[in-house]
């Protein structure tokens, strides 16, 4: 063992491309699965979330306005960054989830492969879920899937990296911007992933990650008028029910994962897209 004292990292929020501490000044103690001290992580507040939603809204038109090819490359770039920092990711996934080094490494591999999968989706979504409609009349009629807008993700509590990748990249690759509440007890892998987006050409605000106490943060997002959809992955059944009721106040799209969400499903991709259909007259 080296006798050098390691330089520890401060785990902060990701809001609008910057890494602030919580405006509340609070942190909370995160332990490893074995109960050892891991880090003091920023304990985000409602105000942090409101800023994050504002950032996501501000970024959304530009993100959706960039080409699907470009969005694919940005997500692929994230996979490249993750690959080069896989040791660090594996260490944190291992500590957070109590996995062996080998298991953690496999989990990171799957997460990175998933990023690549999503990178390839950006320019397929319109073709797979949209199309031309043969209406009876002199119209050119086509349907394109548009993003719902700003999506709140209450990330899985257990799957600290793999789950998080699915939950945030599915809406992002469809053109949405995301405000994610990280796993409360296992937040560091998602914080690392957030850091990687900063070196992956992700425009500021496309992904925002807020760490903190889920039960305190989630209702703010569920009731936020400028959030269009919410993924309740990280909540137990009862809490998800409660938040679903709150989200219904503004007719949000609510995604509740279930046993159907195996590896190749497109349910998450479809959860936060809106088919928009244009009728254009045909004539001389």
């Amino acid at each position: 063992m080296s006798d050098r004292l390691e330089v520890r990292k401060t785990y902060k929020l990701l809001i609008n491309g910057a890494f602030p501490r919580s405006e509340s000044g609070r942190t909370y103690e995160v332990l490893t699965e074995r109960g050892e001290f891991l880090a003091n992580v920023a304990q985000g507040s409602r105000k942090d979330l409101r800023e994050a939603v504002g950032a996501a809204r501000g970024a959304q038109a530009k993100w959706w306005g960039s080409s699907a090819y470009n969005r694919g490359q940005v997500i692929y770039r994230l996979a490249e960054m993750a690959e080069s920092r896989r040791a660090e990711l594996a260490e944190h996934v291992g500590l957070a989830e109590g996995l062996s080094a080998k298991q953690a490494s496999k989990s990171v591999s799957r997460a990175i492969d998933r990023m690549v999968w999503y990178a390839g989706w950006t320019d397929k979504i319109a073709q797979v879920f949209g199309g031309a409609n043969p209406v009876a009349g002199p119209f050119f009629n086509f349907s394109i899937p548009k993003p719902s807008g700003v999506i709140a993700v209450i990330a899985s509590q257990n799957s600290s990296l793999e789950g998080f990748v699915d939950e945030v990249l599915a809406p992002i690759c469809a053109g949405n911007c995301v405000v994610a509440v990280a796993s409360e007890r296992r937040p560091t892998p998602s914080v690392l992933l957030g850091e990687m987006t900063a070196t992956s050409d992700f425009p500021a605000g496309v992904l925002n990650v807020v760490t903190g106490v889920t039960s305190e943060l989630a209702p703010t997002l569920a009731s936020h008028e400028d959030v269009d959809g919410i993924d309740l992955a990280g909540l137990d059944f009862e809490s998800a029910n409660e938040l679903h009721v709150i989200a219904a106040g503004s007719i949000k799209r609510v995604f509740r994962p279930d046993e159907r969400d195996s590896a190749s499903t497109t349910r998450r991709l479809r959860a936060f897209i809106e088919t928009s259909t244009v009728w254009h007259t045909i004539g001389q």
Partner: protein
Amino acid sequence: MDKKDLVNSQLGALAYDAAPESALIARIKQSYGLFIDGSFTEASAHEQFVTLNPANEDVLATVSRASDDDVDRAVASARRAYQKVWSKTSGAERSKYLFRIARLIQERSRELAVVETLDNGKPIRESRDIDIPLAAAHFFYYAGWADKLDHAGFGANPQPIGVAGQIIPWNFPLLMAAWKLAPALAAGNTCVLKPAETTPLTALLLAEILQQAELPDGVVNIVTGDGATGAALVGHPGVDKIAFTGSTEVGRLIQQRVASSQKRLTLELGGKGANIVFEDAPIDEMIEGIIDGIFFNQGHVCCAGSRLLVQESIADEVLRRLVRRVEQLRVGDPMDKNTDVGAINSAAQLARIQELTAFGEREGATRYSSSCVLPEKGYWFAPTVFADVAQSHRIAREEIFGPVLSVLTFRTPEEAVTKANNTNYGLACGVWSEKGSRTLWVAERLRAGVIWANTYNRFDPTSPFGGVRESGFGREGGRQGLEAYLNV
């Protein structure tokens, strides 16, 4: 613009002789039971209500009010049919049943159109040329999907959800029944359909058609009633999916109600559609499009173009022509083949329209209402255009669901998009311009599920319909419409 000049420029409606469609073909029965398990049955509590002709307030028929027990019977019937029959019926066979239903609707189309107009108040021209043919087309379209679900884009061997509870509004009674039933049945579900309280008759005629088609008992059950009947259906634990078309207010309650259940949900709710008119648009077609966009079906259309956004340079001209055109609309007997605007569907809806339009005047908008003579009996509202409307006015924000147009102006395409999107709704918009690139630029930025370019209020079974934001979620029509009824 001086209001007096506008009035002086009016031509008035051209005179025509009355050309009434005969009501004899309707053969409406005095009373109707509930359609459960393949036959008509009395409501358990023997409660009944009447359905009126809104054009003259005559009683058309007495209809059963389904109680919680009746809804329970209907759901049990649908469950039985799902387990014992429909889930074991091949896609090809389901397909043939749906084709049969489409044909039967075509065969009885005149009768259905007349009943629809009597019960709803819409002009016979519309029920005859739009509602009923589209209902048949919807069954015809989804019939073809029933044995091709593997190719619908949701993975191999997609499964139905189970029992669907479907609640429909009064503005397009039979057409909405078709929008709900056809994809549900094609995907292999069984259904309990709740028609609107004020317009139950064509759904009950459809029940007769389902009998003629020999659709297996219980595959479709139709329970008439009011909001309590709908609530019983929404809350029933035996229902796997709720599909609702109606107001955002009720949709919100339904979403809250089903949140803690495993029920799947699709909502098609209200709207405040912007019809955006650029200065280069062909003006004659555009004026007709604006008129059709708001006065079609008395404005009882969730996707109505109720906010006209007109480019400032042509605003005076457009308003002058609109007011003149409104004066020419023929308002009156819905059974007359020349009628453009029929009766308001109910006293309650008329009161709402009157309340909001009174607010429009109070908030400072300038009102132009047609000087047409309204019938003494029935529920009527003269087609109305409001100018000088601000975005903050209630008539620019709230769904009026009546023949009332609010006119606002804009200068640049960016401003048009911003104003169009300045609403919690997001169902439909119109764009009028000769410049295709600009139309597509605007369409890309509109937050709406349907965008009509140089046209308005077009519907087709192949074309997905539905909203974003508080206009609901899920699509009806097209390949996308199957997703709402598949467990995918």
